[in-house]
């Protein structure tokens, strides 16, 4: 039987991914290369923040300490966020944004599919709804990865630079989290390493079609999902939390 704390932490890992990448993608609002893409990125940011709202609300209820989605989203300190480091890295340029979206949404598609059979009924319902969104994100980002990778010399170069930069952080997606063992045993959700083979089977063919070189695995490790974040996380949180910290309890 998984403890309340272990269960909460597992849900937070999933919810914080959506929250932090949603925040990152929202930075594109008003800045995307074309109006149509501006809307698409904002839509996806909102999809992710919608997922985060449901998951953080659920995590707050599991925790049973009276924290709601806003308190979890805006009033935790950096070390209490459980998102993958991949999600907090800066957007840099459009190539890195879509390559990251592709790597992450492919992970989310597999995760939501597995979670839709969760013994946690609330989590299963959230997963079934979110799976449709993630499928669209994967299709959208995958199309762009192929277009840019197999595009001009410059778009290919930027895409390869983005992939080389992001790839080492994808190891964290599948790193085992010992505190999740009982959660997995209780049928609440999959063990992270069990998603890796399917993920590579979805991701690598698209990268090949995009004429990108898949980097070799290195010993590099990141630890965002254990609360040890990159130097970029503090800046992201400062921007994201300033309203709630300046006007505590503010609502609209």
């Amino acid at each position, binding site marked *: 039987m998984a403890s309340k704390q272990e269960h909460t932490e597992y849900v937070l890992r999933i919810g914080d991914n959506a929250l932090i990448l949603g925040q990152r993608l929202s930075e594109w609002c008003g800045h995307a290369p*074309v*109006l*149509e*893409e501006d*809307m*698409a990125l904002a*839509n996806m940011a909102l999809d992710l923040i919608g997922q985060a709202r449901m998951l953080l609300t659920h995590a707050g209820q599991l925790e049973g300490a009276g924290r709601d989605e806003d308190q979890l989203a805006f009033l935790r300190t950096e070390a209490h966020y459980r998102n993958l480091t991949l999600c907090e890295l800066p957007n840099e340029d459009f190539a890195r944004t879509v390559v990251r979206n592709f790597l992450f949404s492919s992970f989310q598609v597999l995760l939501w599919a597995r979670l839709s059979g969760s013994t946690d009924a609330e989590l299963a319902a959230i997963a079934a709804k979110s799976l449709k969104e993630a499928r669209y994100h994967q*299709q*959208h980002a995958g*199309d762009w990865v192929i*277009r840019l990778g197999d595009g001009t010399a410059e778009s290919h170069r930027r895409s390869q630079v983005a992939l080389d930069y992001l790839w080492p952080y994808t190891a964290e997606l599948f790193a085992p989290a010992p505190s999740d063992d009982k959660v997995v045993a209780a049928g609440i959700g999959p063990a992270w390493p069990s998603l890796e083979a399917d993920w590579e089977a979805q991701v690598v063919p698209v990268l090949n079609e995009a004429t990108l070189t898949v980097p070799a695995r290195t010993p590099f490790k990141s630890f965002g999902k254990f609360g040890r974040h990159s130097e970029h996380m503090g800046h992201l949180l400062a921007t994201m939390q300033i309203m709630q910290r300046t006007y505590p309890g503010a609502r609209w």
Partner: protein
Amino acid sequence: MERKEWPLWEVFIRSRNGLDHKHCGSVHAPDPRMALQVARDVYTRRMEGVSIWVVKASDIVASDPDAKPELFDPAEDKIYRHPTFYKLPDEVNHM
């Protein structure tokens, strides 16, 4: 550097099954696949539709606005083309 504009696509959305696709706007996109995708992102965010058509704007053949007098004005006084002069039996009154 040469700057090419993406072609313009006209977007038609069917709001519900059984209704017609209606023109609702346009998007720029490099090819049909992406035109559909951006039309979805721009025009169906608030549950506006269940089906999308996109048509390259340059493939639409349109009547010449200057030809309006000869194309459309002659229909103005041909009221006999409206089927309003038939006496219908009471039983089919709701036709």
